[in-house]
């Protein structure tokens, strides 16, 4: 059996350094948004989103506006037309995660495993289907787009998981305090714990409702690398598909030196993309990540990347994209069918509203919101009270992993406007603090079968205390009640003033009941939806009787 030489090429190492740099930068940005000044998000959290041409194109289609197209995305499109899918090989943090997992494969692939199959078309079909859906206003690219996908997975799973693991382990050691004589385990664990607490996590642990499903999706696509190296990037990734279509005829091309090539196939064995580097004239720039593995694998210098033209004045011939007009049409029809399928619910057609779907402050009206939200999870990451969580089906299939406020877990901090400041697509509009004070997210309601002063004749009104509205949306009326033993007592019984309630949810959060609060906020009265405002403003009216 032939031994594969350890690949050596300085370009390959440069590519690895680039991958490490962008992965660390990506994680660093996700961490940084929670550090520092609590009124200003960390530096540049939008950087990767602004660079993503799939997000830009789909959001522009869905929201019918060009304003969401940022110049880094345009720059990437132009660079891809010249250099090919270098983004996938050198930049994409999800691609790097796949590279790392693929490296764990026990067996190297055969050359034939890295030739094109009909399954490589799937990513183009996914791309066309998602863009057609976007055209009809169903913005679902975020479920597949690697940048939102990776960020969401960090936010909902990787970072909270790391914090959970580190904090609970260190706390267990701290409490058990194992030691041999004067030598304590906490001498090691506590500095590590304090470092992460002060410099990485800074703040209460996040744990997101529905995070398990995001974790499942993330781990599933990572696991597929054991089937085929970079399975996701080869077959599924719509951003890879988009960049592949742009890279059909790049200026930078793989050249085979016929004098040196022995046709051994080592280059194809090293190819993570099935770009067919071993087939002169049929190398596939639409599949190639420009990773330089093939160049490094060839001990004879048989293949190399070059901008130069051949002796005949032309660039080397390349293989065509295998995606017919018929396949494109089929994908488009499938996308359109998906749209109608997604909308088959009374809620999706706005016949009714989900009482528990409370959107962040500054969120656009639901239809427009869904046309922009890319489910990236940046708002959830930055939320200081962990009020925002990814929807499962609360907003329909269409609204999968879009943010909603769960007041029992976290309330909307009165003076905080972070979610609108970081939203990369304007689904949540940036608000000034003054404007935010006027936004109603919903309306509080008391469950008098639960609330202590009503149901159990005990005083409480912790909700009224927490209400941040200066003249109190929750007020109480003192009532004299007769107790079981016949004695009487004064009880403060709370009420909601619907003209003042902003639906921030701190009442529900602060309620003594931790299973189901006795005061709950529903989406009724939300500012962004005039059809969901049952309350006539201006207090109770004159009696008609």
């Amino acid at each position: 059996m032939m031994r594969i030489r350890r690949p050596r090429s300085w370009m390959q190492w440069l590519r690895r350094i680039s991958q490490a740099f962008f992965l660390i930068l990506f994680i660093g940005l996700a961490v940084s948004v929670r550090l520092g000044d609590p009124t200003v998000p960390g530096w540049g959290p939008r950087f990767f989103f602004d660079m993503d041409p799939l997000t830009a194109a789909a959001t522009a289609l869905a929201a019918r506006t060009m304003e969401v197209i940022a110049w880094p995305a345009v720059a990437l499109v132009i660079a891809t037309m010249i250099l090919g899918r270098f983004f996938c090989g050198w930049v994409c943090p999800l691609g790097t995660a796949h590279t790392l997992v693929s490296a764990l494969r026990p067996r190297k692939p055969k050359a034939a495993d890295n030739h094109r199959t009909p399954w490589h078309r799937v990513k183009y079909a996914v791309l066309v289907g998602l863009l057609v859906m976007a055209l009809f206003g169903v913005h679902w690219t975020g479920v597949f787009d690697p940048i939102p996908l990776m960020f969401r997975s960090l936010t909902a799973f990787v970072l909270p998981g790391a914090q959970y693991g580190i904090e609970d382990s260190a706390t267990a050691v701290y409490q058990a305090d194992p030691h041999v004589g004067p030598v304590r385990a906490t001498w090691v664990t506590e500095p590590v714990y304090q470092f992460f607490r002060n410099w990485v996590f800074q703040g209460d642990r996040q744990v997101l409702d529905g995070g398990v499903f995001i974790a499942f999706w993330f781990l599933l696509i990572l696991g597929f690398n054991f089937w085929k190296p970079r399975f996701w990037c080869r077959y599924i990734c719509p951003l890879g598909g988009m960049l592949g279509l742009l890279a059909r005829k790049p200026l930078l091309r793989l050249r085979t030196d016929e004098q040196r090539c022995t046709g051994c196939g080592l280059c194809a064995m090293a190819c993570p993309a099935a770009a067919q580097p071993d087939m002169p004239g049929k190398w596939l720039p639409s599949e190639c990540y420009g990773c330089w593995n093939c160049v490094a694998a060839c001990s004879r210098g048989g293949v190399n990347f070059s901008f130069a033209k051949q002796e005949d004045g032309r660039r080397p011939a390349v293989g065509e994209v295998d995606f017919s007009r018929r396949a494109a049409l089929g994908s488009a029809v499938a996308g359109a069918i998906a749209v109608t399928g997604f909308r088959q619910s009374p809620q999706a057609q706005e016949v009714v509203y989900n009482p528990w779907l409370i959107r962040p402050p500054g969120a656009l009206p639901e239809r427009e919101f869904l046309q922009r939200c890319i489910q990236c999870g940046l708002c959830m990451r930055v939320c200081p009270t962990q009020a925002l969580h990814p929807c499962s089906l609360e907003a329909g299939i269409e609204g999968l992993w879009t943010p909603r406020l769960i007041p029992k877990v976290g309330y909307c901090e009165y003076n905080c406007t972070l979610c609108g400041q970081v939203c990369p697509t304007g689904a949540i509009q940036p608000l000034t603090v003054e404007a935010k004070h006027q936004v109603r997210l919903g309306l509080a309601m008391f469950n008098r079968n639960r609330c202590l002063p009503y149901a159990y004749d005990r005083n409480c009104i912790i909700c009224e205390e927490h209400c941040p509205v200066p003249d109190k949306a929750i007020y109480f009326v003192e009532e004299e009640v007769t107790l079981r033993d016949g004695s009487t007592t004064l009880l403060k019984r709370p009420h909601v003033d619907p003209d003042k309630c902003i639906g921030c949810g701190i009442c529900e959060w602060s309620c003594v009941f931790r299973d189901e609060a006795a005061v709950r906020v529903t989406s009724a009265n939300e500012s962004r939806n005039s059809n969901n405002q049952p309350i006539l403003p201006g207090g109770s009216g004159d009696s008609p009787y």
Partner: protein
Amino acid sequence: MKTNRRAFLQSAVALGGAALISHSPARAADQPLMSIARWSGDENAPMMEVAEKLTVEAIKAIGGLEPFIKKGGTVWVKPNIGWDRVPEQAANTHPGVVKALVRLCYEAGAGKVKVGDNPCNDIRKSYGNSGIEAAAKEAGAEVVYLDRNRFREMEIGGKRLSSIPVYPDIYESDLVISVPVAKHHSSTRVTLCMKNYMGVVENRKKFHQDLPYCIADLTRFMKPRISVLDATRILMDHGPTGGDLNDVKILRTVAAGTDIVALDAFGAELLGNNPEHIGTIRVGAEYGLGVIQYKTLNPKEVTAA
């Protein structure tokens, strides 16, 4: 240096002895138990300056902090930093009071002064917007963000509360100084020095079903030795959260004392209440934590300018 068992024991005994000797020299019997400092200076002076000077005078009038502070020991200054509000809104202790108090603790020989609370709102926004984090750091304090993983269930043996998760670093400090702002409170009518101790525990929501006894139980457990009441500006209504400047009354007053019940009684009067009618104060007196008739202590009244 070589350490053997004998040397170790010797140094341990020496250190222990030093700790015993330096611990809290007894207060002279003739020192006042309570002081009230009022502003007699310029009405337009910045509140930061007013608060600092009043605090210095109030502490000086009860004979300084030296008798309370172990040389080199740890002091936890416990302001009310409950809410994401700015100083003018009178929902949190004035940063000037905290700043002056931290400085006085160091001057009295404290080795480490820590400042921290368990806010109701987001801790970063509350510490920031209250102005307390910046002011305390300026005076050299360590500002502590309470760590939710480190609360420890403690037996407190109260009438209503038998055990509750307490923040160990606060409880184990050599001295804890409760330094609240005087505020209206919708449940207990007033929130002052005793109620301020609710910021050292978790699982406090159920206290609201019997706040007077829960607060008195907790206060007794914390064994207050000195408290400072910030009445530079007080919240007359819509407490404890406030937010409306129309509810704020400017008093330019700071009180200090060893009797936490008496201080609370004084604060209740400032807020327009009869202290006898305030549950926490009544139960505090019932527990023997202090006297309601604070005037019987002959509080020393001083002015600052």
